[in-house]
């Protein structure tokens, strides 16, 4: 018995000593010049270009760099864990509205962002709404990527049509393509709980003059214009011009369908165009094009998906992170990102992007043009927590999907959507 107790005591002592040693080693490492960056994995190569910049900078400065590239879901979870525990990466990529959600935990970067804006002809208008709160910049705007109409030039020509410009044109042309080409649907985009769906539905609503809120942030979805927009969507779906499975699609389904030549048009970022050009340059690459996102009775409205780089307040390496950002944010380096991603990752400084040779290609020019008519969630109001909740709980796509599969009327759909939006806005009053 005495032997067993003694053995146990020795084991506990070793365990304790090991733990103390490990914690001490970590603390020592933390004090060294070290930068940890958390970046989102991209369908286009901008993530690898930024990583290359970081590695070059780190080598020049003698900094121990840990550059992690992870997918969007994991990025969100890790960011939350880091912010809640006040321990983790020094520089984090914040997609869409996430910088707004965590703004109180981010360091102000006014000097850096304002300085870059002055140097390079100002930031895109959307940047201030996306990353500046109560007069303070909480993230450096990184890229915007818009979602143009991606289309098959040959199939549209095959039905004797011009490239569609309005939503009605897209619906009409898609029906003609479906009727003429067996096994091919004219149009397809996810109307399900993923990223693509909410963007498309919002774009459709705005272009019909409808919106979730008004400019003062009051719920305004219950409108004649919203009913018209949903009615148009329902008619389009019923006409057969759209792939019937879209309510169950995820973000990759339209990419897959287009690359498999099963759909002729979709609304998507430049990943489809890039894949077609790079992987099938002699076939699909030759007949794939970009056009402006469709216009409605109230005009043309795109979704401004934007990303920014922020430094959490807990970081002890803030100056190091800023030094890297200054290194990366030069005209030459930013131009390279936009150019090598064919405009898929458009940097948001006016003088940096305005005269790039890639815009001579009309398929790529469409991306820059759309970015000028693109807006964030909460438009025409501001980004709010309630607006982000409506987006992250997929209210619009869920009601749109139910309208299509349960044959709800557009009026009932708008009523259902308004009820859910009001519940969410009341939650965050």
């Amino acid at each position: 018995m005495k032997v067993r107790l003694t053995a146990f005591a020795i084991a506990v002592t070793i365990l304790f000593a090991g733990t103390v040693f490990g914690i001490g080693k970590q603390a020592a490492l933390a004090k060294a010049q070290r930068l940890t960056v958390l970046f989102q994995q991209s369908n286009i190569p901008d993530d690898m270009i930024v990583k290359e910049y970081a590695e070059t900078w780190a080598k020049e400065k003698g900094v121990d760099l840990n550059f992690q590239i992870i997918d969007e879901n994991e990025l969100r979870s890790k960011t939350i864990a880091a912010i809640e525990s006040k321990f983790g990466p020094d520089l984090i990529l914040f997609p869409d509205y996430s910088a707004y959600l965590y703004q109180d935990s981010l360091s102000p970067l006014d000097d850096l962002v304002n300085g870059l804006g002055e140097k390079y002809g100002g930031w895109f208008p959307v940047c201030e709404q996306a990353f500046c709160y109560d007069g303070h910049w909480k993230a450096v705007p990184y890229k915007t990527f818009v979602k143009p109409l991606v289309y098959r030039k040959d199939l549209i020509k095959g039905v004797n049509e011009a490239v569609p410009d309005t939503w009605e044109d897209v619906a009409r042309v898609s029906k003609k393509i479906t009727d003429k080409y067996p096994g091919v649907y004219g149009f397809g985009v996810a109307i399900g709980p993923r990223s693509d769906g909410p963007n498309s539905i919002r774009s459709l609503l705005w272009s019909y003059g409808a919106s979730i809120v008004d400019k003062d942030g009051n719920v305004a979805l219950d409108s004649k214009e919203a009913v018209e927009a949903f009615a148009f969507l329902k008619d389009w779906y019923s006409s057969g011009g759209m792939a019937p499975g879209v309510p169950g699609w995820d973000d990759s389904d339209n990419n897959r369908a287009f690359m498999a030549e099963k759909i002729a048009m979709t609304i998507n970022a430049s990943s489809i165009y890039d894949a077609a050009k790079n992987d099938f340059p002699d076939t699909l690459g030759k007949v794939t094009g970009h056009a402006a996102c469709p216009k409605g009775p109230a005009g043309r409205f795109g979704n401004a998906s934007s990303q920014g780089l922020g430094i959490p307040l807990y970081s002890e390496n803030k100056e190091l992170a800023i030094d890297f950002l200054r290194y990366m944010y030069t005209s030459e380096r930013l131009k390279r990102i936009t150019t090598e991603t064919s405009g898929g990752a458009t940097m948001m400084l006016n003088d940096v992007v305005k005269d790039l040779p890639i815009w001579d290609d009309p398929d790529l020019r469409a991306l820059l043009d759309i970015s000028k008519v693109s807006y964030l969630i909460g438009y025409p109001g501001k980004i709010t927590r309630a607006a982000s909740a409506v987006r992250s709980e997929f209210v619009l796509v869920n009601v749109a999907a139910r309208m299509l599969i349960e044959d709800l009327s557009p009026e009932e759909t708008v009523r259902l959507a308004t009820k859910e939006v009001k519940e969410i806005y009341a939650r965050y009053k």
Partner: protein
Amino acid sequence: MISQRQHDHLLGYLLLIPISFIVLVFIGYPFITAIWFSFTKKYVGSPALYIGLKNYTTLFRSSTFWLVVRNSFVYTLSAIFFKMTLGMLIAKLLNRDFFGKDVVGGIFLISWVIPMAISALAWKWIFQDIGGILNWILMRLQLVKYDVPFLSIPKLALGIAILVNVWRGLPFFALSFQGALKTVPRDQYDAARIAGASPVQIFWYVELPNIRNVVMIVLMLTTVWTFADLQVIWILTRGGPGNLTQVFATYTYEIAIGTGDLGLGITVSLVMFPLLGVMILYLTGIMSKGRKEG
């Protein structure tokens, strides 16, 4: 001077300290914190502000929440029913002698061995409308003219999720029951046959009472696992179309991670606990009663 018995007790308690520490720190503390957060307005990065039962009342007033409750019950109860029934049938089959029994048993285990995410992706590929295997087969056999959007049809989408869950969990049931059935005393079978009992009567009056505790344990574990399942729904439908396959786990994720509203998101997951707690107590009671009668 302490006795040998006292020494043994002391050593037992000392050996429990490390695991108790781990359970308290990594399970107990987060659980208590989660309960606290459910009574607060707690956003990521912000301090928690006490708001009483507001998260719960917000949830109970939400139409989406009641859809989630319904879907979760339908999903869980249906999956358990099929797993229990098919598991028992397969267990009885595997207890018979037939040619190739070991091979069949091995193949049967594949669904349990393959990681859940990979299984769900494969099933998604089968049921996809464009490029899906099932549609390809149906069109080749000219049974359909156009692609069937299986994952967009509401009841079918949930049905497919149940199918995947059953396919994955069936081996656990079958093997557990198979092992339990082997412990049924042979003389009870003989007595029942002599008395002229039918196979159904033998199952109900001889086998089931003998394996009751194993059935209860399997039922308890699988109810908890299925109720809290995220992977199948997340990969197949992510709660769509139109929230019609949204369950507790996916809804919690959407609110907590998507919106950064940890207070409300945690409340969604905590609402499950009373339901599961009642069930566990009930089943534990049945097992205790069974032990006393035995």
